[in-house]
């Protein structure tokens, strides 16, 4: 593989990691600040048992923040990308289920306000996010990452 092609792949991988990382980090902020409202947003999907609502509302945004930061700085990047792919797949499943059931609810994706209803546009956005998160997972090259700097690049 030529240097130019390898550089392009590295650039693409890093760009996708940064893009997905910023989205996850930004998405976590409002949810960490307003866990009660986020718990209500989760409850609206009618998929999570009441017993798990509050732990979910506390834990998920922190995982999002950790994944976002890890993707951006490139620490444990492949693991972060794996979690990002899994979480995005879960969001896609939740939105799809809500659409099929005809639920008129807020997404709760980026903030806990009443706006941002679930719809096809959100579904498409999450599919793009899934693809972006999959790139660093599959490629694994992170020349411009903390892992590489520490000598543990994968």
């Amino acid at each position, binding site marked *: 593989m030529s240097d130019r092609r390898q550089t392009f792949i590295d650039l693409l991988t890093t760009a996708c990691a940064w893009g997905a990382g910023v989205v996850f980090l930004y998405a976590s902020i409002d949810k*960490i600040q307003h*866990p*009660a409202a986020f*718990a*209500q947003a989760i*409850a*609206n999907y*009618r998929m999570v048992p*009441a*017993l798990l*609502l*509050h*732990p979910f*509302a*506390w*834990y998920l945004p*922190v*995982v999002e*923040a*950790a*994944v976002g930061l*890890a993707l951006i700085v490139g620490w*444990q*990047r*492949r*693991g*972060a*990308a*794996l*979690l990002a792919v899994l979480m995005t797949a879960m969001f896609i499943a939740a939105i799809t289920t809500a659409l099929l059931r005809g*639920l*008129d*609810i807020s997404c709760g994706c980026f903030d806990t306000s009443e706006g941002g209803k679930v719809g096809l546009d959100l579904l498409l956005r999450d599919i793009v996010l899934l693809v972006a998160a999959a790139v660093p*997972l*599959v490629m*694994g090259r992170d020349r411009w990452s903390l892992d590489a700097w520490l000598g543990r690049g*994968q």
Partner: protein
Amino acid sequence: MRRHDWHHALRQAGSLLLLAAAASLVLWAVRSDRLPLLADPDAYALDLPVPLISQAEARRLYEAGSHLFIDTRRADAAGGIPGALVVREASFADDLAAVMDFVYPEDSLILYGDATPLPVAAVAVRFLERGYRNIWILQGGLTAWRLGGGPLREGSGGDE
């Protein structure tokens, strides 16, 4: 990706999950507005298709005789509110046909289940589809009614 790459990714993901668990525990501990560990199912509106009504208000309306009570629990459920009509989701058409002479679209209905409103909401939607408009769900269901000292009927099933 090679198998080694997957193992590596899984190990890293595990580390991140543990780190996030520790961070979320610290956040939970230091917040003054922290949520209780267990959620009260009735505390969430769940975006129900019809409004909830408290046990106290429902009891008042029961005493006034102004509202019909609809038992949506399964057929072998014991007890119930005296005078309630049984209409279940699984046999909605048949059950509604059986009580058609007693419940009209302009009537005010209070639906109840065992405790949580979600299963009752499905029956409420069926009523809405049939043109009923004045529908409420008893918050806390029969459990709340019983705890509030509301009258109960012995035996299983309802008035059909």
